[in-house]
């Protein structure tokens, strides 16, 4: 007897997103805290950039210094909107040249979902088993009883 649910990633848990980022980029020092300004490669404040431009980023709750992202990179960050949803801020340059492309975001989303499942399972006293398949999928189960 069963039902199934299919869910696209919705980032809303800062702790789980930090775990995901630390898993995908273990060399990064992830800075967590409200109101962190992101800076561009030249030290420019990205919250002051034109709001309709690709380099604009509001103050963030997660920040990775540009020196860790790559050569000539911009800071990477995550902001939280008034409804609690988290948004990744990746500059156009870093999407193209620093490896923070769609596939990278997919890996972060994967690890985020896994972190959310593990957190919820721990809360209920359930056990999580999983493995990464050759095609990149993460397959597993939460053992309820």
């Amino acid at each position: 007897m069963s039902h199934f649910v299919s869910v696209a990633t919705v980032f809303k848990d800062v702790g789980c997103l930090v775990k995901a980022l630390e898993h995908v980029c273990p060399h990064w020092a992830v800075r967590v805290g409200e109101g962190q300004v992101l800076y561009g490669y030249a030290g420019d404040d990205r919250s002051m950039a034109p709001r309709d431009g690709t380099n604009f980023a509001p103050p963030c709750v997660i920040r990775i210094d540009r020196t860790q992202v790559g050569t000539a990179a911009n800071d990477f960050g995550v902001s939280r909107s008034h409804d609690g949803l988290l948004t990744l801020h990746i500059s156009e340059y870093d999407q193209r040249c620093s490896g923070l492309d769609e596939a990278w975001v997919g890996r972060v989303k994967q690890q985020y979902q896994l972190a959310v499942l593990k957190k919820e399972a721990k809360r209920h006293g359930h056990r999580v088993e999983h493995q990464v398949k050759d095609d990149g999928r993460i397959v597993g189960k939460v053992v309820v009883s």
Partner: protein
Amino acid sequence: MKVIEFVIDASGEIKIDAVGFKGKSCLDATASYEKALGARDQDRKIKPEMHQEAKHDLRH
């Protein structure tokens, strides 16, 4: 054994499937997981056999 099976694809989309539960107890088992993952009601698909068991239960 009651388990919640899951598959997370390369784009980050997750599918969860409650297995081994009787009737609508599977909905209770996954409810908190669905909420944590940000699922909406329209994301849930009920497998046909659950409706069949619900009808069966009503007859008893």
